[in-house]
Every structure is written in C-alpha cells, then in structure tokens.
C-alpha cells in the first residue's frame, strides 16, 4: 500500500515559517562579507568644519580599504554637534543593523555614544576625541586610536620647547586660552597638571576659558592683551580660532607666537580662507599623516578626485584618523570572521596594524583600550598650508619665529 505523503499541519507550517524568519538575521550575519559600520560625525553645528573634514575621509574609506582587502558598508550619520543627537542616533544605527560604531570627533558626544555601545555590546572605535575619561571608565566595548588630552599636552609642550630652542626665541610669559567644552576643559586639566613639571622656558600667567559658540572673542583678546604675554597657547575649534586671531589683529596685539598644544582650529581650511596671510606662522602640535606610508599615499590618491575642492594636506589629520578607525574595525572583522559584538571586540582589542596612515608605531591598544604610542609633530602654517617643522626626521621646513607683524603680510 502506497503511503500518501502527509500534509503538513497548519501549526507546523506556522512554526516552520517563524523559525525561518527568526533564523534569517543569523544566516545573514554568518554570510555577511562586509562589516556594517555607523560613522557618526558632527557634520553640522559649531563643530561642522572638522566633522566635514572627517567625513571626507570616511567617504573615500571603503574604496581604499577595498584595495587592502577589507570590505565595509558605512552608514553616515550627522550628530549635529549635539550630545543628545549622538546618543539617539547611535541607538538608531544599532537598531538598523550597524555592527560597529566609529566616531565622533567630539569628546562629549563620544562619551554619550560609548554608554549606548556598552549597553548594546557593539564595538566603538574612537576616531578623534581626547577626553581622558573615555578610556578611564573601564568600558569594554571602546578603543581609542587617538591621544588623550594629557598625551597631547605632554607631546605638545615638548615640541613647543623644542621649537623655541630651534628658533632661539626668548619667551618669558604665556597665556593659555581654551574652549570650555569637554575637550577644552580636559586640555586645561592636562595643562594644570603637566605644565608645572614640564620645565618650560616661560611661565603661564593666566588661563582663560571661553564659550566656543560665542559670537565674538573681543573681550577674551582684551584680557589676553592686558597680560601682554609673549606666547598665546590656544585650544580652539575652527570658528573660534578665526575670531581669536581676527580680534588680535584688530586690537593690534602682536604676540611672538600663537601655538596650540594639540587642538583643531589653526589648520582648518576655513581658517585659511577666512584669514588669508594672517593665518600663517601659527603652530600646532598634533599627530600627523605620514606622507611616506603606502596607505597614506593610497588615501591621498583617492581623496583628490573625490574632493577636488579640498586639499588632502589640510584634511589629512581628520581624514587620516577617521580612516584609521575604520581600518581598525575592518581589520578586526577580517580576523574575527564574524560581526557579533564579543568576538569582534576581542579582535579589535588584539589589533596590531603596522601599515596605517598616521606617523607612529603600529596601532595597538592597551588594557584600557587606548593606543598609547601616538606621537605628535609640530606643524606651522606657511603660505596657508600646514607644514611639518619638527621633529627633524619628518620636518620639511624650518620653523619661523617670532611670527612677522600682522601689518604688511601678503
């Protein structure tokens, strides 16, 4: 007797369908060949110039990473320079399938995103954010391939001392002025802690905090002028760096040098465009792109056609670190062979990348998730272009100090 095939019961069909639906994400995950990364940056709001600069690096990252055998799929998200937006958008991106998060230029926004990533067990690779607390809170799903504020100050003060010695500039006094946001106050704390023991040839006669969203900085400059320092040490953002220098020119205040121990502002395209020749001769101490690195050259080659109105040399700091954060995530994904939070994070923590963009040793993270080995270079604006002037082994020009008077430039 032939056995007739039994018709599946309605409940069996429903159960089978449900099981198939539930299994789809796992199947998709297992089969995913590209890592889906949410890139959160402040592309609008008061941090927009730097956020846009980072974004330009992120836009070209997939094609450059593909050249080195990595596949990534990016979700570009604007944090609007707002901590709340950063937090909410991180949540949304993870809900929509992001398996890794990169960002967010701003320390305050990154701190908020870190809480979300920790709860959801999704790796967060910090591109740029210097507040020390990011890697001091015991977060398990965060790594930072960027110096802490303290490291920036240590490296920056050393380079400032070196550049004063190299130019034989006798400076007796300095005023430190900084934005009062999370990064700026972290830099202030670093300066208060490190400066007394740094053996600098000048004394710090005042520290002034200002609101980076203020419409003008004339009062701040009047306060600096009242102190009449030889050097002005600044921790700025792009917009306020312009206001600061412009008000110094209008108030006819001529310091010997304006230097940043590690902050944006003085090397942004916007700064050069707004101030023209008055943007020249200011110095920043920052990690910088290594022009001899193969990956740096590949990034520059992709940058030119993608962003013909922008210069790689100006964007290389922001674009370089953003690319490196994506590289860390992509490399970990390749090694882990999975995009699930725990194994991916484990692979991120075990990163050892010899080939990368910025100057310095291989990218590695300590037990706190911090890359402790990122050196700085001293960069001076010359003819509206940032040029490395120290350390000597990577310098392409000699530093010029004191800076020429405002009058008669260009």
């Amino acid at each position, binding site marked *: 007797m032939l056995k007739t095939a039994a018709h599946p019961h309605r409940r069996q069909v429903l159960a089978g369908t449900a099981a198939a639906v539930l299994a789809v994400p796992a199947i998709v995950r297992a089969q995913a060949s590209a890592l889906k990364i949410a890139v959160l940056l402040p592309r*609008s*709001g008061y941090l927009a110039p730097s956020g846009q600069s980072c974004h330009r690096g992120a836009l070209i990252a997939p094609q450059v990473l593909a050249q080195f055998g990595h596949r990534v799929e990016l979700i570009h998200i604007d944090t609007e320079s707002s901590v709340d937006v950063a937090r909410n958008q991180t949540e949304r991106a993870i809900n929509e399938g992001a398996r890794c998060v990169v960002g967010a230029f701003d320390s305050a926004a990154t701190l908020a995103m870190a809480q979300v990533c920790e709860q959801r067990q999704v790796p967060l690779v910090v591109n740029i954010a210097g507040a020390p607390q990011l890697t001091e809170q015991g977060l398990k799903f965060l790594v930072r391939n960027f110096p802490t504020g303290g490291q920036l100050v240590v490296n920056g003060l050393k380079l400032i001392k070196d550049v004063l010695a190299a130019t034989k500039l006798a400076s007796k006094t300095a005023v430190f002025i900084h934005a009062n946001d999370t990064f700026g106050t972290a830099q202030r704390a670093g300066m208060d802690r490190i400066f007394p023991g740094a053996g600098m040839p000048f004394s710090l006669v005042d520290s002034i*905090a200002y*609101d980076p969203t203020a419409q*003008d900085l004339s009062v701040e400059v*009047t306060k600096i002028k009242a102190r009449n320092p030889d050097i002005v040490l600044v921790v700025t953002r792009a*917009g306020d760096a312009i206001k600061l220098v*412009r008000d110094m020119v*209008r108030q006819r205040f001529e310091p010997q040098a304006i230097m940043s121990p590690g902050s944006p502002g003085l090397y942004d395209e916007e700064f050069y465009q*707004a101030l023209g020749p008055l943007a020249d001769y200011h110095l920043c101490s920052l990690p910088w792109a290594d022009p001899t690195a193969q990956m740096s050259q590949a990034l520059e080659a992709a940058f030119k056609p993608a962003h013909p109105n922008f210069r790689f040399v100006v964007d290389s700091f922001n674009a370089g670190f953003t690319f490196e954060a994506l590289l860390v995530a992509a490399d970990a994904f390749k090694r882990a062979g999975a995009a699930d939070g725990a194994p991916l994070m484990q692979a991120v923590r075990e990163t050892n990348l010899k080939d990368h963009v910025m100057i310095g040793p291989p990218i590695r993270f300590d037990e706190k998730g911090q890359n402790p080995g990122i050196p700085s270079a001293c960069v001076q604006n010359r003819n509206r272009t940032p040029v490395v002037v120290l350390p000597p082994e990577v310098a392409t020009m000699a530093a010029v100090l004191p800076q020429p008077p405002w009058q008669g430039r260009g």
Partner: protein
Amino acid sequence: MSSLILNVVVQGGLTGLVYGLMALGLSVIFGVVRVVNFAHGELVVLAMYAAFELWRSFGLDPLVGTLPVAVVFFGLGYLLQTTLINPFIGRAEHEQFILLVGLGMVIVNGLLMIFRPDARPINLAYGFDSYEVGPLLIYKVNLLAGAAAVVVAAALFVFFRWTATGTAIRACADNLTGAAVVGLNVRRLYALTFGIGLACVGAAGALMVTIVEVRPALAPSFTLLAFIIVIIGGLGSMGGALLGGVLIGVSEALAGFFFEPSMKSMFSFGLLILVLVLRPQGLLGRRA
C-alpha cells in the same frame, strides 16, 4: 585698566546695537500683529546668506547690501503674512508656535542643503581695521554696523511716528477693534507690519554678517538672543529693543572681562531674570 574697561564697554555697546536692531523686528511684529515669530533667528540667518551671496556674486559690500536685503525681506514679510500667517491670527498660540517653528526648520534645513554647514566668512578690505581714538581702539566694522543699526532704527521711529501709515499701524497695535471700526484695512496693515519687521531682520542680518561668519547653526542662538533682548527692553517697544541690545552687549562684555569669559551668557540670563522679577513688562515696555 580704565582704558581697557572703556574699550570693552564701547565694543560691547556697538555689537549690542546690531543685536538690538535684530530684536527690533521681533518686537515690531509682536507689538502690532501679536504673533511671536519663533522663526526669527532662522530669518536673520537667511538675511545673512542673502548679504553673503550679494557680496560673493556681485562684490557688494554688506553695508551697502543692507538696503536691497531689507527691501527683499520687506516683500518676503508681506507675502508671508498674507499667505501663511493671516490664517493663524486669532488661533491658539500653540498653533502659531508650531507654524513658525516649522517655518524655521524649513529655512534652516534648506540653508544646510544649499550652503552646507560650513561658516562663510566675508573678507572685507577693512575687516581687520580699527580706529584709535585716544585710549580707545574701535573696530571699524563694528562702528559702521552699529551706526547703520542706529540709522535704520531712527528711520523706523520716524516712519511710525510721523507718517499716516505708521500712525495707522500704531492704532492697530493700541486698539484693534477701534482701528477696524474706523475703516482701517487691518489685514493690509498687518502685512505691512510683518514686512517692516522682516525688513529690520534683513538689515540686521546684512550688518551681522560683517561681524559674525554665517552658518545655519547660528539660528537658534539668534532667536534666543532676540527673545532675551525684547523681554529685557519690553516686548513691543522699539526703544526697548535697542536698549536691551546695548545692555546685553555691554553686560556680557563686562562680565567676560571681570569674570570668566565662558560665563558671559549667564549674566544675560541673570539680567533677564532680574527684569522679569522687578519689571515684568520690560524696561521700556507698557503694562498690559
């Protein structure tokens, strides 16, 4: 020390005059039409971009560009009032609020799409100049912008005080029913008032762009600043708006000088609270 303080006061006062002109538009519109323009900051930024484009495309100095921008904004205000605002007159305040906040969002996001979020500076030949008058160093742009703000405010005062249309608008503000009874075309006068209010906004935006680099993100802070100024000066009072602007400019500057500059805004809000407690109608405002 005294010369430094004098410098701080003068710079703060000049910047405050432009702030005052910016707030004047808000005050004029509320004083007559009784609509609080929550899209005020966005419209100021739109005017700044208009002045910026005139400078970039035609090389027109923003101080000269003040006139065409004000004229265009007058037309824009007239159009907005007749098409968009009029149907909301007399409706619940929250409906007006939603309408104008929505308008503001459309403007600022439109600007973001067209101009991107970057700050756009205007590089004027005299942008870095300053006048030395005894111990004083006065920024040329701030002096010119402040003087232009005074001229615009004076012209507005003359219009409202000594012209028939200005008197009719004041009649609407004082007694709407009475104005309608004597045969005044209230809707047309409302449209004119909104136009005049936006002309002030246009002029202030064109002057502001000489002092501040324009970017869309400025809008909310301008709205807030304008509200603080008109509340201090007295909502609906023209003189009050200018006085409020100067007071905010000077108090912020002095607070920044004597205390921490990052605490400047705290003093503006402190002044606002003080006025609300001691004289809720504002310094030059009338009791309801």
